[in-house]
């Protein structure tokens, strides 16, 4: 290594590299001027500019300069460290330098992209360069910690996303626990009769996967269960799962359903959630015959025995497996996993909120999910389209975008409603022969074979009216409208206002985040977008990753999507988890905090502040202690410590103050 020359004046030798990023940076910033300026900064032994620093030759430049100029620190003035800090750390390591002796300056997002004035943007880039050079001399060599990854995986949510992710992982030989809050897996897809655009039977493609989950030796299926608590970190999570009582021993019940027949309630009379309230169930019930696991459960709200303790318990007496256990209690179980796939799905928009469509006021108004059950051969009407009053509709209007693309409710497009509305239009027409009207804003059919499906519907004599329906009303102005629901709409293609009398209105409600999405995201320490769907790490390049390592998201919990996209994403989430597991270990960032015990006064200020539970209090020593593995390097404890005894790697006082002084010095 060449000796320290007079130029660096005893300071560590810094290499400065500024990137053009094509014209992204060079278009606004005078890159050569910044390079020349940086070359004259104290400690800088070499300053270069290059068209694409992140490219192979760019990285090679850094690696070879380290050798050639005896560089001890590197500053790269380019894009966001989120994008390429790792790239340049690796380049430094290749040249034999500790990777944490690299500092990045973001002159793209922070300067060239947000400014138009070349001169001042260039000045800003110089200021930032000066700050980084002043800071980097204080960078210490740090080591990454390696921790092993537990190969077991938790999948949360048993819809098609969770099912597919669990099966993929299990087929790769990993042990999976699938937790589902309902009594059966299957999710929304289990409600559907047919799927678009192929019109293949939803049950025929879903139920085999459901039974594969149940039968898989590598999958432990916990339905009627919810995740309560998540502790730990990537590769090493401890998860507490609440198991709700079914009042039926799951291991004994074989799903013969004789108990349901025997129940003292002769007729089903309670709200059947699975059938969207269109059917009735008894206190002892099973959601549907193909429910998985095929185990009955007892509803404590309606069961006489559980409510009053006084019932003949005919259900239990006919059970030759002795599966009933009215004393069952809720219990919690702890499991250890290394990674988590969240596939918690969506809920549909509450149609009652759009008062103008009369849902809940006019019995002839239905949500699309209700109609999914009506057209379903195993639904409450065995697939016959019958209104609540028993009539068969002669005309049906389907309103698209209810709770989607609406300033008053949800601004986003729910992506699936155009297509499922087409599917329902087809099925309603096929099952009932009714005239069907679709009221749409724009038809969105962007998937494989979707446009063709729309085209097919156009040929089937389904009517399409472009316009947002103003209201559904029972205000009749002609004899033909008497006793009908009148749909008032501006037909924006014909340029006229129409009144269309129908017997049945279907509201194509949009997709929303689950009601408890905020709670769930906090429990798993991930983010949500402003609309409440789980936030992916990068919308294009890391769509199933989250900002918490080892926690992946799949399906509609991340945003509205259809079945093909959901399944693709579930596969991707499983692959990400497998990549983590197969690596066998994770390297933890060394930007952690540490307590200088001699200076710690034991005031405990830091303990409750840590969002990751990494700070504890050592009662014997009366000092705070930080678990390096749990620490995520947020810096809250270091900032809050009144005695200054907590320091954080890469964010030491010397580093930060030098940076501030650097940016302020002229």
């Amino acid at each position, binding site marked *: 290594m060449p000796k320290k020359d007079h130029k660096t004046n005893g300071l560590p030798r810094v290499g400065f590299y500024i990137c053009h990023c094509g014209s992204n940076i060079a278009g606004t910033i005078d890159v050569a001027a910044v390079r020349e300026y940086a070359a004259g900064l104290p400690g800088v032994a070499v300053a270069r500019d290059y068209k694409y620093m992140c490219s192979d030759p760019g990285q090679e430049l850094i690696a070879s300069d380290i050798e050639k100029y005896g560089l001890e620190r590197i500053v790269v003035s380019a894009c966001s460290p989120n994008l390429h800090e790792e790239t340049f750390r690796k380049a430094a390591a290749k040249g034999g330098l500790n990777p944490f002796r690299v500092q990045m300056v973001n002159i793209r997002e922070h300067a060239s992209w947000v400014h138009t004035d070349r001169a001042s943007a260039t000045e800003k880039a110089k200021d930032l360069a000066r700050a980084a050079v002043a800071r980097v001399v204080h960078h210490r060599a740090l080591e990454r910690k390696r921790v092993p990854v537990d190969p077991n995986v938790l999948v949360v949510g048993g819809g098609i996303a969770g099912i597919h992710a669990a099966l993929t992982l299990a087929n790769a030989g990993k042990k999976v626990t699938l937790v589902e809050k309902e009594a059966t897996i299957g999710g929304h897809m289990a409600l559907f009769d047919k799927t678009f655009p192929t019109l293949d039977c939803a049950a025929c493609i879903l139920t085999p996967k459901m039974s594969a989950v149940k039968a898989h030796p590598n999958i432990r299926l916990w339905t009627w269960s919810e995740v309560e608590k998540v502790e730990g970190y990537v590769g090493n999570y401890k998860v507490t799962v609440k198991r709700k009582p079914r009042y039926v021993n799951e291991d004994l019940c074989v799903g013969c359903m004789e108990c349901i027949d025997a129940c003292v309630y002769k007729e089903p009379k309670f709200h059947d959630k699975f059938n969207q309230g269109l059917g009735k169930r008894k206190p002892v019930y099973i959601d549907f015959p193909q429910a998985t696991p095929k185990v009955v459960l007892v509803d404590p709200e309606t069961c006489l025995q559980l409510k009053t303790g006084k019932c003949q318990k005919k259900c239990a007496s006919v059970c030759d497996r002795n599966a009933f256990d009215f004393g069952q209690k809720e219990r919690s179980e702890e499991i250890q996993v290394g990674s988590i796939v969240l596939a918690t799905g969506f809920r549909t928009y509450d149609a009652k909120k*759009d*008062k*103008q469509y*009369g849902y809940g*006021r006019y019995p002839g108004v239905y949500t699309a999910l209700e109609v999914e059950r009506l057209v379903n051969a195993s639904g409450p009407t065995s697939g016959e389209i019958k209104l609540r009053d028993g009539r068969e509709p002669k005309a049906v209007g389907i309103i698209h975008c209810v709770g989607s693309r609406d300033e008053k409710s949800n601004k986003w497009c729910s992506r699936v409603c155009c297509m499922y509305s087409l599917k329902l239009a087809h099925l309603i027409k096929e099952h009932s022969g009714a005239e069907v009207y679709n009221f749409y804003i724009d038809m969105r059919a962007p998937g494989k074979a979707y446009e063709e499906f729309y085209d097919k519907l156009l040929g089937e004599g389904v009517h399409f009216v472009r316009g947002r329906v103003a*209201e559904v*009303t*029972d*205000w009749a*102005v002609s004899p033909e409208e008497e006793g009908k629901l009148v749909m008032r709409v501006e037909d924006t293609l014909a340029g006229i206002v129409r009144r269309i009398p129908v017997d049945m209105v279907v509201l194509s409600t949009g997709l929303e985040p689950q009601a408890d999405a905020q709670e769930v995201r906090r429990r798993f320490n991930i983010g949500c977008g402003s609309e409440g769907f789980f936030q992916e790490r990068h919308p294009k390049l890391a769509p199933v990753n989250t900002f918490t390592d080892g926690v992946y998201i799949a399906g509609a919990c991340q945003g509205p999507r259809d079945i093909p996209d959901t399944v693709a994403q579930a596969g991707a989430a499983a692959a990400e988890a497998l990549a983590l597991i197969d690596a066998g270990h994770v390297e933890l960032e060394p930007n952690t905090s540490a307590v200088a015990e001699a200076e710690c006064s034991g005031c405990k200020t830091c303990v409750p502040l840590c969002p990751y539970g990494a700070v504890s209090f050592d009662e014997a020593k009366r000092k705070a202690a930080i678990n390096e593995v749990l620490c995520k390097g947020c810096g809250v404890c270091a900032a809050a410590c009144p005695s200054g005894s907590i320091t954080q790697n890469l964010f030491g006082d010397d580093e930060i103050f030098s940076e501030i002084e650097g940016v302020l010095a002229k």
Partner: protein
Amino acid sequence: MRYQYFPGCSLKGSGRAYEESFLAVFRALGVEVRELEDWNCCGATAYMSVDETKSYALAGRNLAIAARDRADVMAPCSACYLVLNKTMRGLGENPELKRKVTGALKAGGLDYREGVKVRHPLDVLVNDIGLDEIRKRVKKPLSGLKLASYYGCQIVRPFATFDDQDDPVTMDRLMQACGAECVDWPLKTHCCGGSLTGTLPDAGLRLAYIILNEAKKRGAAALVTPCPLCQFNLDAYQGQMAGKFGRPNMPVLYFTQLIGLAMGLDADELGIGRGIIPAQAALAGR
């Protein structure tokens, strides 16, 4: 409990019965209502399309006067209620407009300040005084009286501050608290004809007729409304409708008149006789 009162032109003119009944009801409830001093035109509709800044200044003047007092302002006319609220929002969202308007008001010795609350008496009766209190005050329940509560547009659009935009219910609840029955109908906020009754009578009268006819079809004996323009359109033009569509012969009352009756106030004090379509038959025995 004390409120300021912005009457606007209607309540001093065609809607005099509204003012009479409004003041009588609040007096009977023991609520102090003080008319805003030296108020001027609210700046409603026509001004807005001619000169926006001036119309904001005109409305702003009323708000500046109201700001001298801490009490909320009641604006019983839906148009006044809307324009005053719209002005506050408009000035809040547009600093340049606010600069102009406050400057103009300052030149007139007035100080425009934010924070004035302009409220509809329907909101005040339901949310400040409360249905329980109203129920307690009812001496002559309106039992057997079937009403169609008609809200009109401006009280819920574009700002739905205290009720639902498409299916408002506060007036129905108030009338029910007074013992009346309210028909279930879908035209609560449909158009009464607005200014079209004057400019395009063919269209305007048709719209007004639709409301009255549907109310009648649903079995209502009278229509009840919180808006003086709706009341005027629906009441005063029934004669002209007769030739074209049929005679609805439906009395159109202010909600304050019916509350007053239920509270046992005198029909004359409530301006009941001022309606063009007589309400006596519908209110027989009250």
